[in-house]
């Protein structure tokens, strides 16, 4: 009894001389460089050594970036709603009252300084004449 492989190869053993002749012609062609054996190109070599050989590393890096992107997206999404929350927080009664008090205090502190400044002459409203000459309104204000 023989295995299926054995009887299959034995059946075609008659072709062996022709296959040998084919092989000799093939090897002769290789030896005389009629059949060119292409060398791998630089691009192929780089691709193989930098990308294909390190495939697990690239997959790991890609996965890490994906995790970072997801984390970034999930942390950034609520902040889009946050301005409303911040406004609501600022607009709470205690803070509003505190701000009003601060504003009032600021107005009181600044009022004496601001008043004379408002009376300074504006060049656009001044009539023709020397810029050193005060107009009537300024003279009136100075008198008061």
């Amino acid at each position, binding site marked *: *009894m*023989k*295995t*299926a*492989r054995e*009887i*299959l*190869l034995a*059946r*075609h*053993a008659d*072709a*062996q001389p*022709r*296959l*040998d002749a*084919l*092989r000799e012609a*093939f*090897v002769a062609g*290789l*030896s005389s460089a009629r*059949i060119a*054996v*292409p*060398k*791998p190109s630089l691009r*192929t070599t780089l691709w*193989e050594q930098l990308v*294909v050989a390190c495939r697990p590393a690239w997959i790991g890096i890609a996965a890490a970036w994906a995790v970072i992107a997801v984390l970034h997206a999930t942390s950034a999404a609520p902040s889009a709603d946050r301005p409303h929350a911040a406004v609501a927080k600022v607009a709470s009664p205690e803070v509003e009252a505190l701000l009003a008090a601060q504003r009032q205090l600021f107005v009181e502190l600044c009022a004496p300084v601001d008043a004379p400044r408002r009376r300074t002459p504006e060049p656009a409203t001044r009539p023709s004449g020397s810029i050193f000459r005060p107009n009537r309104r300024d003279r009136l204000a100075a008198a008061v």
Partner: protein
Amino acid sequence: MEADARLLPVAAARSGDPAAWEALFRRFQLPLYAYARELLHDDQAALDVVQETFLNAVRHLATLRDEARFGSWLFGIAHQRCQQHGRRRGREARWLAAVPADQDIEDLSAADDGPDPHDWLVRSEQEAEFFRRLGELPDTQREVLLLRFVDDLSLDEIAGITGVPLGTVKSRLHHAKRSFRLLLGPASP
């Protein structure tokens, strides 16, 4: 197959060493010829397939990533060459015809098919009947069986060579084995 593949001088062949190519040719010439001859039923076409397979192998060996898979890679080239020869002879429709039983993948993977084709033992008086049944198989089933016989390729490798899913390979192998069950049943271990 993997252990055998490690002994092949594929690395030397990459550098264009003629002695390495001669060793590879010598190792695969008869299995390739038997595979092509049983598929194409034509001596000259089978010789052409062997020659074209090696010429293509020389040109494209740089693209082979895993040297341990040289054998299945070579049979993949031979498969393509056989398809081209089959098309030339107007047998494309038959070659590419799907086997109806290819659908029953899940059931077949769990079924007990008996011994693997690589372990089949054939009595000398059964050889003629063996080849008659092999010739009667649909091309798709015969191809899977031949790849299993001639180079003990794994089902994964056969799926890669033929370009069909693993389940389809299992299905085809199952139906091919069923055709031989009556012939080999009493004699098989």
